[in-house]
């Protein structure tokens, strides 16, 4: 667990003279009040700078260090700044100092500065390599977004709801990192890599022996071909990643032009609906295919019934004829063979009268099971089914889904066109490339699918050849095959473990996020919680079980905060949350609820707010004993701020 103890800044942003903030040991919230321009964001950045040596500006862009020096001091010819951060981690006290000093008298860009860093653990100072390793372990940069964030970063979480979005993908990856998934993923990758090498080795061994030479060579060739397909897939994926980044860049540019923001929004919504429709179609098609597997029975239902009726009639006729023949014989013999009695007098007369006049009309009994009876027995083996109604319903749904997709694709094309060819003045730079990037993305995706399929075919061939080879097995051949098998099985175990582990994490994150969301939302009576998707996006679940589609900016904000808290609660790593003005889009009731919930999100919370968002009285009233310290950022001049503790 990481806990901040003390932060000292000098020459950093508006803080000209050394300024100190101390964070109490007790769990709870430290609040720093400050008006706009006083340096709240600079404090967040000072912590970021101490750990990573970087400072972020708007749009999460890295800011040039030259712009960080206090401007008042700079006007007097003093450049550079330093940050010192003291914290506890794993039972040790650490002090981290990072300084940025000019190397020339009048620096004008980042090249004119040099940076130094020092990390002390207890009483000993760590060497550079050890320092970087320790910092990477204490606070990995990749997950810092979950600990140090502002309102803007919270907005990024909305991207999680758009499946195809590059930013969403990046955030999902960061979430998995904070939750520890990469270890399993890397394990699977390394085992697969080693198992393929082992396969190649086994094939090479086999090709050296006369009896297995042909098989070994074929196996080697197949493995090489498979590798070539894999390499191509990797290359294409890299290309896709670059194209997606390009797309995001252009989209960000378009987003910045107000006029296109709503078009982009509608396009993204349509894309999300298209994804859903494609998934639904796949499911529906699966159900239809299952139903069609049994449909032959429905087709034969009527013919079989008709044949059964006909066979029954025929069998009845045969039975009647048989009875008649028995009667005729009894009349002829004057004796009934069935009941072994004499037939005479009135009985004989009655029997004779019941026979047809033509003696030839009565056929002699043939004996054995009649053809009609055996036909009936055969027909009764048939299991009847009627799924015509089911097929009709599924087919209708499938066509509706196909139609919906066509409509959505058309709409997306129109919207993309609207993004690409309006206002040539503003979009001159991006319009051509945007359309091109989209086209390239779809081409690369298709190519990835194709290559993947080819790779799978090769793999099937490899498995077939391997089986054949196993039947030869000399002892050293067996050894290399065993080696490959262990690696393959282990890789399979790791692959399955990734899915299992992620599913478990997702449900835990969903449960905690729901709890936090319900404690922060003002619509408790309507909502039952949050539902998490594959990429860790959260949707609000209404009490009637449906997803709430229209969400206000405020609701998005609360959902994002709930996710932050849930990740903190479920991740193996624990640390402080430092939030800069997180209430921007929230009304008063939501703000109260969020403040109330903050102590449940992390043990140590540092909140940077301006008093118009939340006043001191309100803060004290809501947090009570969980408010552990308050600071005020005081204006000295437009370029100077001091930090004062509020007693």
């Amino acid at each position, binding site marked *: 667990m990481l806990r901040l103890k003390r932060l000292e800044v000098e020459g950093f942003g508006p803080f000209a003279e050394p300024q100190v903030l101390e964070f109490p040991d007790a769990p709870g919230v430290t609040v720093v009040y400050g008006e706009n321009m006083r340096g709240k964001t600079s404090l967040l950045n000072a912590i970021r700078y101490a750990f990573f040596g970087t400072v972020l500006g708007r749009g999460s862009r890295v800011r040039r260090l030259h712009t960080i020096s206090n401007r008042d001091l700079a006007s007097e010819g003093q450049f550079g700044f330093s940050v010192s951060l003291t914290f506890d981690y794993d039972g040790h006290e650490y002090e981290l100092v990072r300084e940025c000093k000019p190397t020339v008298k009048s620096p004008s860009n980042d090249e004119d500065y040099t940076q130094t860093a020092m990390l002390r653990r207890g009483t000993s100072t760590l060497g550079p390599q050890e320092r970087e390793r320790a910092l990477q372990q204490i606070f990995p940069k990749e997950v810092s977004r979950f600990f140090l964030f502002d309102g803007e970063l919270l907005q990024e979480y909305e991207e999680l709801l758009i499946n195809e979005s590059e930013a969403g993908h990046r955030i999902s990856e960061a979430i998995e990192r904070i939750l520890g998934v990469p270890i399993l993923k890397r394990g699977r990758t390394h085992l697969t890599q080693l198992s393929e090498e082992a396969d190649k080795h086994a094939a090479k061994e086999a090709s050296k022996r006369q009896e297995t030479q042909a098989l070994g060579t074929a196996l080697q060739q197949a493995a090489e071909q498979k590798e070539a397909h894999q390499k191509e897939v990797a290359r294409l994926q890299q290309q896709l990643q670059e194209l997606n980044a390009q797309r995001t860049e252009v989209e960000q540019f378009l987003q910045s032009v107000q006029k296109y923001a709503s078009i982009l929004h509608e396009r993204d919504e349509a894309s999300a609906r298209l994804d859903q429709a494609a998934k639904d179609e796949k499911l529906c098609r699966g159900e239809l295919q299952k139903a069609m597997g049994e449909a032959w029975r429905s087709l*034969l239902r009527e013919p079989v019934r008709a044949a059964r009726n006909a066979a029954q009639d025929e069998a009845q006729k045969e039975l009647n004829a048989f009875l008649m023949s028995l009667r005729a014989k009894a009349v002829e013999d004057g004796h009934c063979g069935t009941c072994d009695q004499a037939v005479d007098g009135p009985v004989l007369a009655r029997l004779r009268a019941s026979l047809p006049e033509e003696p030839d009309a009565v056929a002699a009994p043939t004996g054995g099971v009649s053809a009609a009876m055996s036909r009936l027995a055969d027909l009764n083996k048939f299991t009847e089914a009627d799924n015509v109604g089911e*097929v009709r319903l599924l087919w209708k749904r499938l066509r509706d889904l196909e139609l919906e997709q066509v409509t959505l694709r058309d709409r997306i094309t129109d919207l993309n066109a609207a993004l690409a060819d309006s206002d040539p003045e503003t979009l001159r730079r991006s319009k051509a490339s945007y359309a091109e990037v989209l086209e390239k993305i779809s081409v690369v995706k298709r190519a990835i699918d194709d290559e993947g399929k080819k790779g799978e075919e090769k793999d099937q061939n490899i498995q077939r050849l391997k089986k054949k080879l196993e039947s030869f097995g000399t002892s050293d051949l067996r050894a290399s095959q065993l080696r490959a098998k262990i690696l393959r099985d282990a890789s399979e175990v790791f692959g399955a473990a990734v899915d299992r582990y992620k599913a478990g994490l997702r449900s835990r994150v969903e449960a905690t996020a729901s709890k936090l969301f319900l404690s922060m939302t003002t619509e408790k009576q309507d909502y039952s919680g949050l539902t998490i998707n594959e990429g860790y996006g959260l949707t609000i679940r209404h009490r009637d079980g449906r997803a709430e589609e229209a969400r206000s900016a405020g609701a998005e904000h609360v959902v994002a905060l709930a996710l932050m808290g849930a990740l903190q609660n479920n991740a193996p790593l624990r640390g402080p949350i430092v939030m800069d003005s997180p209430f921007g889009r929230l009304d008063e009731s939501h703000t109260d609820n969020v403040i109330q919930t903050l102590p449940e999100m992390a043990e140590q919370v540092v909140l940077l707010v301006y008093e118009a968002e939340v006043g001191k009285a309100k803060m004290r009233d809501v947090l009570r004993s969980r408010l552990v310290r308050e600071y005020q950022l005081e204006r000295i001049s437009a370029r100077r701020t001091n930090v004062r503790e509020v007693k």
Partner: protein
Amino acid sequence: MERDRESVGLNPETQAILAELEEHGWFLEGQDIARFCMAYAIRAKITEGATAGTETRWAAGNFDKTGEIRALLAALYPSCVTPVRLMEHLVNEGLRIVAARVRSEAIGPAELMD
């Protein structure tokens, strides 16, 4: 006596038809299409016969795991002594008439069952 076959095959024409029907994605596998088309042919009262020039596709034991189809053919075509050959013929004929309907009427699986 004429020997029956052990597998159900398709001729070049019906092989192409099967691939064409597979493209629609209404069925999970080729065997399901073949069984459906065979039933379609029976319902259309296609008479007994044999299809020449076929190439093996499915083992009869797999195609008719429960033996229902063979029993059914014995009942519906009592004079037939080679049920697998007949099964094959009905599959081939069924494929042809189903494909002809699908092509000319542009219909889907539900309409085929009406």
